[in-house]
Each structure stands twice: as C-alpha cells, then as structure tokens.
C-alpha cells in the first residue's frame, strides 16, 4: 500500500471514529441540547475527515472541489437543522418544562 492509501485509511478511520463518538453521544446524553452538541460537533468533523480522506485518495481537482462543496453544504444543513431543533426545544421547554427529556 502506498503512502496515499495509508493516509486515506487513517483519515477515513478517524472520521468513522468521530461519527461513532457522535452516535454514542446521541444515545447516552441526557437531554436535547447535549445531544445536539454531540451531533453537530462530532459528526461535522467526522464528515470533514471522511471527505478529506476521499479527496486524498482520488487526487483529481474536480473531485476534490466537489467533496469540499459537499462538506460545506453538509455543514450548512447540519447547522440550520441544529438551530431549528434547539429553538423548538427551547420554546417547548419554556411552555412545558417536564417534557424537556422527552424530546424526540
């Protein structure tokens, strides 16, 4: 295996590790806001690592720029979704505090 393959493997494995961490956080954290923390931070970093691993593996400029675009759009989507979920949870919390742990 060449150096490129080694680097790719390392990046992909690191990315999967971060995804795993995010999922563990999703399952184990007590309430909505903590889970959102886990998801947004860990998953987005994981996505960045996976995309860079694939970019290193392919090496073509077109593919690298597409992967960069994918990461940015994924970041945008995750950001806005997290914002909307947090907002909804916050408003819900304001009206009925006992439901804060029942968020889906």
């Amino acid at each position: 295996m060449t150096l490129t393959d080694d680097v790719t493997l390392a990046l992909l494995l690191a990315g999967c590790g971060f995804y795993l961490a995010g999922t563990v956080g999703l399952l184990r954290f007590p309430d909505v806001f903590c889970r959102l923390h886990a998801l947004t931070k860990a998953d987005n970093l994981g996505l960045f690592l996976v995309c860079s691993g694939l970019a290193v593996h392919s090496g073509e400029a077109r593919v690298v720029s597409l992967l960069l675009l994918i990461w940015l759009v994924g970041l945008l989507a995750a950001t806005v979704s997290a914002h909307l979920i947090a907002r909804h949870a916050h408003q819900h919390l304001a009206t009925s505090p006992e439901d804060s742990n029942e968020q889906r």
Partner: protein
Amino acid sequence: MTLFLLDGLIVVGLVTLAYQAVSSRSLFRGIIHFVVFGLTMALAWARVGAPDLAMAEAAIGAGLTGALMLVAYRRLVEGRSDSPADPAPAQSRLALPIAIGSGLLVGVIGLSALFSEVEPAQAGQAVLSELQQVDLGNPITAVLLLYRGLDTLLEVAVLLTAFLAARAVAGADGGEGSATTPAPETPMVGALLAVVIPLTVLVAIHLLRAGSYEPGGAFQGGAVLAGAGVLLILSGRIAATPVAGPLIRMGLLAGLVSFMLIGLVPLLKGSPLLALPGLWAVYFIETAMMLSIAITLILLFAGGGGLKRGRNG
C-alpha cells in the same frame, strides 16, 4: 471478503429497519425507521450496480416520502385533540402471516434462481449494440426514451393520475392552510434557502443533462427539484391553493403532452409511432418531464391543487 461483509451488513440492516418500522412502539419512530430504510435501500441499489435507481430511491423514497409521511403524521395524529400523545402503529393480525409468507416467497425465489440456467440477456445486448448508432452515452436514457418510450410515457401518466386521484380523494377542501406548522421566524432559514435553493436547481439541471452520458436523467432531476420545492413550502415561501393557476397547470401537463405530441408527429410522415425525430426531441421531452415530475411531487406534498406565494414569500 469485505464486500461480503458490507452486503451482509446492508441486508441485516434492511431487515432490522423494516421490522422496526412496522413494530416500534411509537408511530413517529416507525416513520423515521422507514426513512432510514429508504436510504439503506439506496445503498443496496448502488451495491448491485444501479446508480440511477439509487439516486431516485434516495431522493423520492427516503426524502420526499419521508417528508410526506411526517406531514401526514402531524396533520392526522398531532392535529387531532382526541388522539393520544404518541400513538403506536396499529397492530394487525395479518402481520405475522404476511411476514412468514414473504420470507417463504424470498426463499422460493432464491432457490429457483439458484437452480436455473440463465440465458444471455437478449434485450440488454441489443440495446448495447444499437447504442453505437445513437449519440447517447447512457444506455438507460436510450432505453427509457428511444426504445421503450411508451413505458416512460405511461409512467408520467401514472404520476399525473396519482395527483388527480389525490385531488379526487381530497374532495372539495384542501388548499388553504398548508399542512405544515407556521414557518419558524428565524433568519437562519432565509440564509439556508438563499444558498441551498439555487444550488439544488443547479444540481437538478446537471442531473438532467448528465443523464445523456452518466447516471442521471429526468426522474432524478425532477425529484431533486421537488426537494427544493418541499423546502420552500416548509419555510412558508410557497403555499398551496385549491385550484392551480395556468402556469402550474402547464407545468404539470408539459411532460406528458409534449411526449404524446412529439410521439404522434412521426405518424404524419409515415414513420412508426413514438419514433423520436432526433436527439433534440429526447432533450426537450426530458426537460418537460423533469418539470412535470417536480411540479407533481411538490403539489402532492403541498396538499392543494396549485401554488402561490406564501406568507413569508
């Protein structure tokens, strides 16, 4: 070895997700499981070498269907004051017999597929050899529009019929008041739309054009465009109306009508029915179909007969 593991993971995932979707204790969770099932299905299609199908499944099966089901859930379940807070899906006595029957069916099909000799696919080879004479690189697009155009025409008619049947069931009401909750008033949504909508339109047009020589095509482009429409509806930029205006009506019918008219024209010159007079016809019909598919799916999601500018538009 790793591919075998991957395939096994996908199969186990599919069966587990299907089971969870049907038997989870909360209807909402069941819907989410179904959406993830759709995405795993797209993975499966990609594994068996059908990227066009994978794209269509991800866009329509996971994306649009998921959005539709969530909206329906909100309207039917949460909207009613008399239903319980988090209902379980209805139990059916037929669930176990159907599951066992399906398993047996799969087993029988697998066995019979194992014990048969497969002849080379005549139709597929004919397509690949004919493809040399046409300037299309994607055999799927050639089959859809040039060789088996009637199937595609009727499929677009099926989409129109589904929309008409949905309108017929909806009856006299429907339209005013979207099925979704009021859009959240936060500037983040506006920023998201400002970036995502033009990007989505670009991707849809790219998929349409790329269909000639790569996986892609009118259905995939239309589904992606419909996704953009769903975003606009959810954020209140577009709302439903009971009756469609002339522009929406033209867009709805464009695909089917243009395919039929362009297909009938060769008869005047003595050529066979549906013998498209050139690649320009293929591109024109594909564009019209993409428009029709997108508008039909958006209207089905909006729940009305037509569209107008919404409250935040």
